[in-house]
């Protein structure tokens, strides 16, 4: 079976990004959650195979770090491709909960309760 996952490893990671080594936007963190837009926008071109692999993996919301691990690609490579997909309107991205020096008590209590249930 010619699986795109197997084919992917034959390609040097940054060949997937057209040689780009830095993302066009800096706001994808390891725990930014990305979700494929369904149905995809009618405008725009058909995504490349590697972009398709990402879209299949994020039909349900998934964090950037998980996506990279599942695709067996470096985070930096995945982020560059996510930028393409975001700009093409194919995904949405949710940034992580902002953490300030004065943290949100309700959030902490939720985490506390969740851990207590483990």
């Amino acid at each position, binding site marked *: 079976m010619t699986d795109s996952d197997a084919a992917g490893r034959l390609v040097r990671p940054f060949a997937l990004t057209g040689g780009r080594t830095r993302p066009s936007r*800096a*706001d994808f*963190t*390891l*725990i*930014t*959650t*990305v*979700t*494929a*837009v*369904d149905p995809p926008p009618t405008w725009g071109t058909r995504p490349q195979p590697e972009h398709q692999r990402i879209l299949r993996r994020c039909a*349900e*919301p998934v*964090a950037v*770090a*998980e996506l*990279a*691990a*599942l695709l067996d690609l*470096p*985070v*930096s490579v995945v982020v560059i491709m996510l930028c393409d997909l*975001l700009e093409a*309107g194919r*995904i*949405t*991205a*949710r*940034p*992580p*909960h*902002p*953490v300030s*020096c*004065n*943290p*949100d*008590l309700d*959030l*902490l*209590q*939720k*985490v*506390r*309760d*969740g*851990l*207590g249930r*483990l």
Partner: protein
Amino acid sequence: MAGSDTVAPAAPDTVKILIAGGFGVGKTTMVGSVSEIAPLRTEERLTGAGVDVDDLAGIEEKSATTVALDFGRITIGQDLVLYLFGTPGQQRFWFMWNDLALGALGAVVLVDVRRPETSFAAIDFFERRKIPFVVGVNGFYGDHPYPPDEIREALALPEHVQVLLCDARERDSSRDVLIALIDQLIASAAGANGSGRLTGPGR
């Protein structure tokens, strides 16, 4: 960020906690014992420079390195997911932790009593950056030859840093270390808000 108005399955809010400490101290073991998924490994390119610094192409080459990260996930609820990241253990990467520490709720520094010096760099890192942390003393084979106070003294830890004896292989033990960290955060947040709200550790 763009796109929050688009119709899509609701993405959860995400937070993270770092599991730090010297090489081989049990970071991935702890991640694995509380995570709902087998720990995943990914590669991240970390840079010594700030994330917002542009046009440092030449310099970046010198200060960037690729490190392997092990991480796990705990779904707190439908709308909130906690990620645990094991930080690179090699001391020479300590200055690379900045990127990882950004946006973390806090950290657990694991210590191996047989060679505590391997965790000094991690303790120093979080102290200097005022990132809240607790120290988890990982007893190998569940063995704890020293009481917490002796370990505190050996590590020259200030009073406010909690020292907990744990077994990173045990889910309950690892969970209790995470809960101690969150309780510490809740206590300091309640204090900072000036509301006098106190959450007992028994809750």
